[in-house]
């Protein structure tokens, strides 16, 4: 089951440059929340703060409170522990190129010391089914490299890899920006099904995508959360002029 995320007074920096200013946000469990905004508005930084990926960049730092269910991400919890509970899918599909499809999906578990063969088989199959890739790869799952799949398949492989560690939250950082409309459609359909078991936060440049998949939408501008509301509200009648200007394309 997914858990909610409560963000309070989150600030993030790259060196001396402040990338996020006092973000407060309640992300609902088992729903999809879209993060939209122009390039450089801090939306990627925001989701990377949720699973403490932000701090893997040299000189990057963050403070504030992020509660993932009952876990306090920035207080007394190890980063790796947070990341095991929050799966992440990146902008460009990034399967491990030297690993088979099977090993890609099993990587998160194997590398964290999980070695029960039979159980691994089950998890790999279930994860690939969840990400709607199983039918396409079941015969070559151990023979073919993850890198040999098409872009859309690679991205679903990455989703399966993230799901295999059984997270409660799935962060997607522009997961479809490198994909064609058909692959995009498959992944959007997938997001709908995944909502049943996971909380989803999706960063997207494509506003139609946000409106299609997410119940809630947050609009970021220059490191600030300008508006956060139900998606239909944001896309039909936003409260803030800046949101409306962005949504309608009158922006810069």
């Amino acid at each position: 089951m997914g858990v909610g995320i409560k963000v309070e007074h989150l600030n993030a920096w790259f060196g001396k440059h402040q990338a996020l200013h006092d973000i407060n946000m309640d992300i609902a469990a088992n729903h999809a929340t879209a993060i939209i905004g122009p390039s450089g508005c801090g939306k990627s930084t925001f989701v990377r703060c949720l699973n403490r990926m932000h701090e893997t960049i040299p000189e990057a730092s963050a403070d504030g409170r992020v509660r993932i269910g009952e876990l306090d991400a920035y207080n007394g919890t190890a980063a790796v522990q947070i990341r095991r509970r929050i799966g992440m899918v990146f902008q460009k599909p990034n399967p491990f190129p030297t690993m088979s499809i099977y090993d890609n999906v099993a990587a998160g578990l194997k590398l964290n010391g999980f070695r029960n063969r039979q159980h691994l088989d089950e998890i790999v199959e279930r994860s690939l089914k969840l990400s709607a890739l199983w039918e396409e790869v079941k015969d070559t799952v151990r023979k073919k490299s993850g890198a040999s799949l098409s872009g859309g398949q690679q991205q679903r492989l990455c989703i399966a890899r993230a799901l295999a560690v059984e997270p409660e939250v799935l962060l997607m950082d522009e997961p479809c920006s490198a994909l064609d409309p058909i692959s995009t459609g498959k992944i959007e359909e997938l997001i709908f099904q995944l909502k049943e078991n996971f909380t989803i936060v999706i960063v997207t440049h494509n506003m139609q995508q946000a409106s299609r998949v997410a119940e809630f939408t947050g609009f970021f501008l220059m490191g600030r959360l300008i508006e956060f509301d139900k998606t239909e509200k944001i896309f039909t009648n936003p409260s803030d002029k800046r949101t409306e200007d962005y949504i309608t394309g009158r922006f810069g």
Partner: protein
Amino acid sequence: MRTRFQQSLEELRSKLLRMGGLAEQAVDRACQAYLNRDLARCHMVLEGETQINEAEREIDELAFDLIAMQQPAAVDLRFILAVTKINSDLERVGDQAVNIAERVMDLVELPIVDLPVDIGRMAAAVSAMVSRALESFIEGQAELAQAVLEMDNVVDRMRDEAFISLVKVMNDRPAVTRQALDALLVSRNLERVADHATNIAEDVIFWVRGADVRHNVSTDAPMHQAAPDAD
């Protein structure tokens, strides 16, 4: 900046205004035709009908194209939706004008009688509603539109009064039943026009405020930065 898109929206707006002008003119001409038993005006209304239908089709096509090709959102989406609804209301206004003109053509052969109903006053009120509704669209003024909604009650009352007195006339003076019936139908046509004007005003409010005011749905103040509840 999506300037081309903005230009298209502007084009849509001016097309709708022209359409509004045609519909308004049709109602005025039909009322004049009734009051003066003027067959020439009746024919002008009937000819105008084709123009209105043509204009309606053009507006629908443009709006349809914009939705399909530009994926409008927020205020733009509301605007285009409002335009299509106003468009179809205006077309119906044109239809009502035609109905009135047909009544007049039916009436011209009959003797003139004095009836206890002031169609001229009703026509003036209805025509004011239509032009106010269009004005609120031009100005993007929800307050003006609100005023139109209130005027609708006045017209409704006029129609009810006309109904009662004309039925009485039909009972008392069977010889003028046809004239009374025509007057009754015209008052009903005018009341319908007022309803369309009301719809237009509601669509303007929806476009401007993003709130649906039809059928007295309450319009809560929009939430801002509020945490959405997980329902």
